[in-house]
C-alpha cells in the first residue's frame, strides 16, 4: 500500500518541532511510533503534506522520578514502559495495560504519547491514564501547559492538544503499594479491546479505602467508572461486594455497537470485567 506524497522533517528538539508544526500549517502531522499513523496513511484515510518525525528528539524519551510523580516522555516506547522498575513500583497499572497492547513488534515502536494523542477509544492506555489522573504536558508556540486526563480526552480521536501543539510528557501521581489489574477482552489474542477495565485499588485491613477504575471502548473516550469507585470505597474486598459495585460499571457509558459486540453485550462485559479487574487488583 502506498501513501500519498508528503514532505518529511526530523527536528532535533521540541522547539524545532513546534516551529516545524507552525511552518507546516493545517496539513502537518506528527509521527511518533507510526503504529497508528502509518496504517492511516497507507489506507489513505489521511494525506498530510508534511510529516514531522519526533524520533530524533532525545528529551522526549525516558522515565524519571520527579518528586511525588513519575514523568514519562511522550516518545517512550511501550517496550521501555513495560520493563521499567519505576513504573512497576509506582504505576503498575500502566505497565500492565501496556503489556496487553498488540505484539512485540508494535510495542517496540508504539509510544505512550502517540497512543494518548491518537485517542482511539479502543486504545488500551487511555483508561489507565484517566483512572490514575495522569497530567499531560503540552508544548506549543506560547510555551507549555498541563492538562489533566479528565479534560484531555474530548471525543473520538480528539484530545485537548491544539493545532501547533505537541504532547511532550505524561506525569503520573505515585500509586505505591496499590494493587492493580488491567482486564482486557478481545476477539483474538493480539487484537484491540472489545472492552477492557483498568483498576487500581488500595486495601487497608481487608477494606477498600481507595479505588480508581477506567473503562476502555465503552464510549467515544476512555471513561472513568466513578459509580463503581464510590460503591467500592468502604467495602470489604470480597467477591460479593465487588460484584455488587461492578453493577454500576455502565453508568455514564455510551457503548458502541460493532461486529464483535453490540452495546448490550459490551455493557454486560463491562460489568463482568470490572468485577474481575477489581478482584484481581485487590489480590
Amino acid at each position, binding site marked *: *500500500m*502506498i501513501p*500519498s*506524497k508528503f514532505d518529511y522533517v526530523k527536528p532535533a528538539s521540541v522547539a524545532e518541532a513546534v516551529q516545524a508544526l507552525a511552518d507546516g500549517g493545517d496539513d502537518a502531522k506528527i509521527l511518533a511510533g507510526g*503504529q*497508528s*499513523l*502509518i*496504517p*492511516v496513511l*497507507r*489506507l*489513505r*484515510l*489521511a494525506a498530510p503534506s508534511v510529516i514531522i518525525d519526533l524520533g530524533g528528539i532525545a528529551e522526549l524519551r525516558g522515565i524519571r522520578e520527579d518528586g511525588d510523580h513519575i514523568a514519562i516522555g511522550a516518545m517512550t516506547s511501550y517496550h521501555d514502559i513495560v520493563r521499567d522498575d519505576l513504573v512497576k513500583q509506582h504505576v503498575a497499572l500502566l505497565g500492565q495495560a501496556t503489556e496487553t497492547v*498488540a505484539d512485540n513488534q508494535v510495542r517496540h515502536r508504539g509510544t505512550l504519547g502517540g497512543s494518548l*494523542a*491518537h*485517542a*482511539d*477509544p*479502543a*486504545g488500551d492506555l487511555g483508561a489507565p491514564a484517566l483512572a490514575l489522573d495522569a497530567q499531560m504536558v503540552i508544548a506549543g508556540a506560547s510555551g507549555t501547559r498541563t492538562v489533566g486526563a479528565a479534560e484531555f480526552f474530548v471525543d*473520538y*480521536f*480528539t*484530545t485537548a*492538544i491544539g493545532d501547533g501543539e505537541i504532547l511532550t510528557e505524561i506525569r503520573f501521581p505515585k500509586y505505591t503499594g496499590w494493587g492493580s489489574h488491567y482486564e482486557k*477482552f478481545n*476477539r*483474538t*489474542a*493480539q*487484537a*484491540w*479491546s*472489545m472492552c477492557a477495565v483498568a483498576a487500581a485499588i488500595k486495601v487497608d485491613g481487608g477494606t477498600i479505602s481507595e479505588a480508581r477504575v477506567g473503562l476502555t*471502548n465503552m464510549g*467515544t473516550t476512555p471513561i472513568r467508572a466513578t459509580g463503581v469507585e464510590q460503591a467500592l470505597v468502604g467495602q470489604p474486598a470480597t467477591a460479593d461486594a465487588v460484584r455488587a459495585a461492578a453493577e454500576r460499571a455502565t453508568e455514564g457509558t455510551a457503548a*458502541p*455497537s*460493532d*461486529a*464483535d*459486540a*453490540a*452495546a*448490550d*453485550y459490551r455493557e*454486560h*462485559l463491562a460489568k*463482568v*470485567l470490572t468485577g474481575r479487574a477489581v478482584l484481581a487488583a485487590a489480590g
Partner: protein
Amino acid sequence: MTTTADPTTLEFGKARTRKEDARLITGRTKFTDAINLHGMLHLHVVRSPLAHATITGVDKTAAEASPGVIGVYTAADLGVEGVGLPCAWPITPDMKSPQRPLLAHTTVHFAGEGVAVVLARSAAEARDAADLVEVDYEPLEPVLNMEDALKEGATLVHPDLGTNENATWVFDSGAAGTGSSIDEAISAAEADADSIVLKRRFIQQRLIPAFMEPRACVVDPTGEQITVWAATQVPHILRTMTTVTLGVPESKLRVIAPDVGGGFGGKIGVLPEEMLCVALAQKTGKPIKWNETRSESLLAAHHGRDQIQDITITAKRDGTVTGLDVHLLADMGAYLGLVGPGVPILGAFMFNSIYKFPALKFTCTNVFTTKTLTDAYRGAGRPEATFAIERIMDELAVELGIEPMELRKKNWITHEEFPFTTVVGLTYDSGNYEQATAQAMEAFDYAGLRREQEERRASGDKVQLGIGISTFTEMCGLAPSRVLGSLSYGAGGWEAASIRMLATGKVEVITGASAHGQGHETAFSQIVADQLGVPFEDVEVLHGDTQISPKGLDTYGSRSLVVGGIAIVKAAEKVVAKAKKIAAHLLEASEDDIEFSGGTFTVKGTDKGKAIQEIAFAAFMAHDYPEDMEPNLDADAVYDPENFSYPHGTHLAAVEIDTETGRVNLRKYVCVDDIGTVVNPLIVEGQVHGGLAQGIAQALFEEANYDDQGTLVNGTFVDYTLPSAADLPSFDTSTVSTPATSNPLGVKGVGEAGTIASTPAIVNSVIDALRHLGVTNVEMPCTSQRVWRAIQEAKGNTTQETPIDTHSPGAGLGSIDPNNPQGEVQ
C-alpha cells in the same frame, strides 16, 4: 564400483527439514512482486465501491494528467468488452453462465469489481492517479440473501439470464442405482414408531482464503513468447486459459509461477488483472506489473464456503442411519469462478463420509448474488459436507440418547469391509476407522474429560467443558480424468513428470505440480533418491515454468503427492529400465541377470556392478551402448490415477467456555490421521497444523461480513480476524497408516485433511459444553458474543442486539467515528 547409497538409510519416512525453506524464510527468493524489468509500467485497478450499480460515466481527465501516467483505460478503451473470463466447470447442460468481463463496462456486480485501470511509470503514480478517476454510478438494488434471490420478483444480478439461479445439480442414489431411494427411506421412517426423522439447518459462512502473499503478476511482451510471472497455483492452466480468453497462441506464452506465498485454492483462478496485464503489455510493448494491496485481496480475490445446508437424516432408534437428504444453496457471488460452480458438487460424494448409509440424495442450487465470487478454498466442498454430516450425527446422538462416538461406530465401515463401495458409488480402497479412533480417544483421555465435564456440570462451574468429535474421510488427489469427464469438468486430472540424468550423475526432476509453500521439492527429492538410489542432495526438483515443465495440471485438491508423486515414480521406473539395459551391456550380462538396489546394478551372484551414476556417464559419452536403444536415460511419464485418495482420521476437541462472557477457549486438540504411508512426517505435521488452524478459524474466528448495501465491512486484517499461534493450543497430532492400495507408494493426500476435519469437531464441542443449559445451536464463527447470546436465549432472556454503528476497533482504522467514516484523525 563407485559409491552406492546404503539401502538401510531410505529417504522415505525421514523427517527432513525442507530444502526450500532457507531461501523462503531469509527473503533470498524472488516472489512475483520482486521481479523488476527494464522499462516496466505499473497497473492499478480502479474498483467499484458499490455492489450493484450502473456506470453512467467515467471521467479520466484528471488521472490522465497526473504525473507519470501513461494511460487510463476502460474496457471500451481496450476493446475488451467482449472478452469473458473462463468457467471450466459447467455442472449441468443448462447451467446459466454470465460472462465475467475483465472490467465492468455497463454494470458493476460486486463491490471491488474493476471499472478502469491506470498505467503509470511507478506503482505510486498509478495509485495516486487511480484516486483521480471519477466514476459516476447509478445505484441498483444489491442482491445479498440467497433465499430472497430465488424468490419470484427478486432483483436479478444478471437480468438477461432471467433468474438468479445458476444451476441445480442432483444426485440420487435411488436413481443412480448406487443405493436406495431417500423418499422411501423418509416415508418408511415417518411410518415407523421405531425410527426418527431429524432435520437441521446449518450455515457455512463466507470465508476469505487469506494467503500470505497477495496476488501479483508481471507480463513481459518483449520476447518471442510473452512471459507471464504470476503468484498462481496453476501456471499450466493459466497458460491454456490465457489462450482461451485472449486468443494469444499457447506457443507464444510462457507462464512462470516463481516461489508463491500460499494459495489455499485462492490462487487457482484466471484473474481479470492477469488478462489486463497481457492485453496492455501487447498494446504498449512494455513489461507490466500488477500487485494488489491486502484490502484489495480480501475484497476482490475469490471467497470460499457460503452455503445454507438443509439436512434431513432418518434413523432407527438403535442408531442405524437409513437415509440422508441434503439440500444446499451455494452462493456463487456475482460471476462464476474457474471451478466455482463445481465446488459444492465436490461435496456431494462426501455427505455419507465414513458411514454405510443405504440412501442419499443431494440437491444443490447455486445462486448468484452481488458479492465477490466464490471458488475453491482448502477442502473445496468437502469441509462443508463433513461439517454437515458430523454436526447432524451429534444431533442424532442427542436425539436418540446414544453416546456420539458409539453412534458413529454403529454406522461406520469396519476395516474388514474395505474396499467398500459407498452409496454414492465411490470405492474407498483402504482405511481403518477403529484404529485411528482408538488411538485418538486414548491420547485425548476421552473418558477422563467426560468425567470432568460431568463434574463441572454438576457443580454449576462458570467454566463449562465441551467435547467435540469429528470422524472424517475425504476424497482427494484430484483426480481420475474419466471421473472428471463424467462430472463435465473442463480438464483431466493427470499429472506429468520427467527425470533427467545429468552426465555427472546428478538428477533433475521436473514436475507439473508446482508448489506454493507445501514442500514438494523436499518430498519429491526423497522419493527420487530412493527410486534411483542417489543421494538426496543430488536431486533437484524443477517446476513452475512452462518452458521447463511444459506439461502439468498444477497443485490443488491434495493431488501433488498422490498424482504428481506417482508420475515421478513412473518416470523413475523408466529411467531404471533404460539404465538396466546399458548396465547389462557394459557388464556383459543378460538383462535378466541384472539386479538394481541402492543405486547399483549388479550381476546376480557376482560382485560385478555399476552405479547408476556410471551408467548416466556412459549414456552421455555414448561410446558403448546397446544397438537397440538411444543413448539416453531420461524419461517422461504422465500418470492418470484410477481412483481418488481417501485419507481419514479421528479428531477430538475439548473447549472450555466461560459462561459469563461467552468466550470459547480451545483447551485440547487431538487428531490421528490415516494418510497411508508417509514420505516426510515433518511436512505432514506442518500440513496438518496449518489445516487445523484454518478449520478451527472457520469454527471460531473468521467470517466475511457484508453490510446491507453489499459492502465488505471487514476488509483488513484488523477486522477479518485470522487467529495466530497465540489463539491456538499445542496440537497433539499423529498418524496411523493403512496404505492406499490405489497407488504404488501407498500414499494418501494430506493437504486439506486438517481443514476438513476440524471445523465440526470444534462446533460440536462448543454445543456440547452448552447443551445442558438448553443451547441447541451456535452459528459459526462461534464468537464470544454469539455464545453469550445463545446462553441468554436458552435462559429465556431476550437480548436486544443493536445495529452496528462502528467498525471494529483496529490499527489505524481505529474505532471509526460513524459520523466521520473516513476517520480523519486529529
